[in-house]
């Protein structure tokens, strides 16, 4: 298929960017969205132009590196990561808009690459269990009810891609923060730091410039891993409880 791409090009965080139009042809429906961009970049390199910069790594939907706003939707029309979006979801002749994550807390590094290090700092402020290596008790010393383990797992699936922030009209990181708070707070191993964890993580989230949550729910709709919106209610409950 032949496509028209309108891609956000921006040299660096302090230079203005703009949508630039490109045409690509011979795109197979079995290509992933990133393979389609690879095709464009191969042509750009041969023309001596700078290829479009974008983050990507595992290309199997788990590392969380890739992410772009495609036709106004974080990760595009399917509920998956950009690397797992295939061109069969587009039609010959389509015009596709491709932009970086847009959020105050995610400055653009270049083109479609943004700086998501604020998410790392949220984790560093409390998204862990203090368990220095070697200090662990025997694994079966504390049984964990299957329901708690499953609930923890459901939230631990977050890949930290930032789609929730990009999709939120307020640029809020509530779903991201909730995912880690719920994962650790429902487990007995996370219980001793339960209160300080949620307080510190919420405080860091606010300090990093993420917006507030107004329950629009766009985050959970965009989340490629299906982190449930109820996670945010659980986060609020944990916060009030603390």
């Amino acid at each position, binding site marked *: 298929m032949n496509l028209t791409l309108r891609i956000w090009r921006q040299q660096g965080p302090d230079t203005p960017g703009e949508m630039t139009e490109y045409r690509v042809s011979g795109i*197979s429906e*079995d290509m*992933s969205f*990133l393979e389609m961009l*690879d095709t464009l*970049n*191969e042509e*750009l*390199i*041969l023309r001596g*132009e*700078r*290829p479009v910069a974008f983050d*990507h*790594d*595992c*290309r*199997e*939907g*788990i*590392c*969380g*590196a890739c992410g772009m706003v495609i036709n106004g939707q974080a990760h595009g029309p399917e509920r998956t990561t950009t690397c*797992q979006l295939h061109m069969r979801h587009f039609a010959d002749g389509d015009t596709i808009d491709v932009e970086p994550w847009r959020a105050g807390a995610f400055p653009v*590094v*270049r083109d479609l*690459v943004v*700086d998501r*290090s604020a998410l*790392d*700092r949220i*984790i*560093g*402020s409390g*998204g*862990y*269990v*203090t*368990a*220095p*290596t*070697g*200090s*662990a*008790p025997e*694994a*079966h010393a504390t*049984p*964990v*009810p*299957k329901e708690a*383990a499953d609930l*923890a797992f459901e939230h*631990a*699936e977050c*890949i930290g891609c930032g789609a929730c922030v990009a999709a939120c009209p307020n640029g809020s990181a509530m779903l991201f923060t909730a995912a880690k708070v719920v*994962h*650790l707070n429902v*487990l007995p*191993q996370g219980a001793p730091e339960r209160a300080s964890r949620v307080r510190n993580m919420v405080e860091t989230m606010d300090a990093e410039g993420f917006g507030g949550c107004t329950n629009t729910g766009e985050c959970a709709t965009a989340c490629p891993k299906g982190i449930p919106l109820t996670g945010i209610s659980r986060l609020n409950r944990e916060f009030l409880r603390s």
Partner: protein
Amino acid sequence: MSYLDYTLGAPVADTAAPDGPIEQRWERRRFEAKLVNPANRRKHTVIVVGTGLAGGAAGATLAEQGYHVVQFCFQDSPRRAHSIAAQGGINAAKNYRNDGDSVRRLFYDTVKGGDFRARESNVHRLAEVSVEIIDQCVAQGVPFAREYGGLLDTRSFGGVQVSRTFYARGQTGQQLLLGAYQALSRQIAAGNVEMHPRTEMLDLLVVDGRARGIVARDLVTGEIRSYTADAVVLATGGYGNVFYLSTNAKNSNATAIWRAHRRGALFANPCFTQIHPTCIPRSGDHQSKLTLMSESLRNDGRIWVPKAKGDTRPPARIPEDERDYYLERIYPAFGNLVPRDIASRAAKVVCDEGRGVGPGGQGVYLDFADAIARLGRDAVEAKYGNLFEMYQRITAEDPYTVPMRIYPAIHYTMGGLWVDYDLQTTIPGLFAIGEANFSDHGANRLGASALMQGLADGYFVLPPTLNDYLGRTKLAAVPADHPELAAVEAESADRLNLILAVDGDRTPDSFHRELGELLWEECGMARDEAGLRRALARIPEIRAEFWRRIKVPGTGEELNQALEKANRLVDYFELAELMCLDALHRAESCGGHFRTESATPDGEAARRDEEFGYAAAWEFTGTGEAPVLHREELAFEHVHPTQRSYA
């Protein structure tokens, strides 16, 4: 002198492992290791390159112990290292199932699975430490799968007959990595780890014969600078991406270990690469990487192809008696659970016979119809739901109703930097952990053992051995104006400038694809002398063409992903050459290395222990120059080498 005329150097031996009963060696080593006073640890800086299971675990643990850690990853966050993509599980000799498992059995299985090309003392330690890993990860809040009683669930995994694999649905690597990442994040926030994301190691700094730092490039600004330390730990993973198409993440690369090799670290068993039997077949020339489907699927899926050549009927229309469940037929005891190399080669054999399925006949069926009938769709979905979903997303086929198509792909590299029992390379002060070293898997790695080794090295093995090195070694600070720093920085910058200056007419990816296809063809699942000689003749030609025709737009002083790729390729050319030479010199079959000239009458791999019962550690002498081979003779005192049999 041709590259092929390698010479035989002095043997290399592991002198770090204590002797005595194998069960007591690790305890003795830890007891005899020197300690560093906790108050003195903060005066030592340790560089850790990479933040996967090995690097993340090592960085967090060393920082907890009080060392000043300076850590690097090329990704935008330490959480994205490729360990995250491991699906199936992690082995540990807990014997929770009371099914006859033990440290001894895990040790035995790993040595046997590695086809008797691993070092016994290292493997035994790995099996011992496996037990502590599970405890550590549970304490961190890793949400392993559990039974209704609240205890941990386990399953059996490719190539073994006990249930010792702990798992977190199909995302075990992700959950274990996030555990290590969270521990590391805690140390970053506490100021004990200085983290440099989006920064790639370009070279190693060796001062007075010791590893004293690295030269790295800030991938955003392009700045190249030196970082000095008292010791350097490489946790940079394997080199499977030399094949271009592999299951590795796109940016995983060999530059860190290869540059260390060029600076004097021996590189062991480069031809030992693992091909994973259950990957999604490629769909066309645009393919940028291959996606693995966890081999846990082989627990319930049945592998088959049509009995007749060129049978193009849809699978549902092929009656039961016209199907060949070839693994169950050839290996009745293990069936679909034979080790990876055996399953991969068997798939290639049936496809070469013209019985492959799907586009180009490069695929076999992995069928869940029986499992769904036996267990119900819900049970199958609970076990494999996310894998089925992934398969459907990529292929647009529903594996609940149509059998999956799978084909082998490069997945893991057992070779790597040669290390002794302390995980120290032949450069004092340079340690290699996880997939970056060669030590524990011999010629073939068992399923669910990569996560075990990465975490064992990072959490439990490296910290005491590094203590010993720092405790024994008097190190003066490397002055910032030391000439070696400026020299290596300039060398790294020159290489990038040379690439940029060519301004030719071919892209980095086009060269990478060409190199990868050549290697897959001649140094992939089956190798022979003629093919390896062809590859060794062709690689220097591709390299010469690269330096005539490579094109990379932009400059080195900015985020330039095409430049990153081209720079990694320069190392891949040299590594590919060494892999082929190693494969050529090892005129036997063992594990993942199958030489068609060395097969049993029924086509199985035939080892030649008398001639090749050693690890091949290669010394670099110059680009295109014949390397020097140092052999480490392997002694098998506890697991007697036998021809592997899975029949």
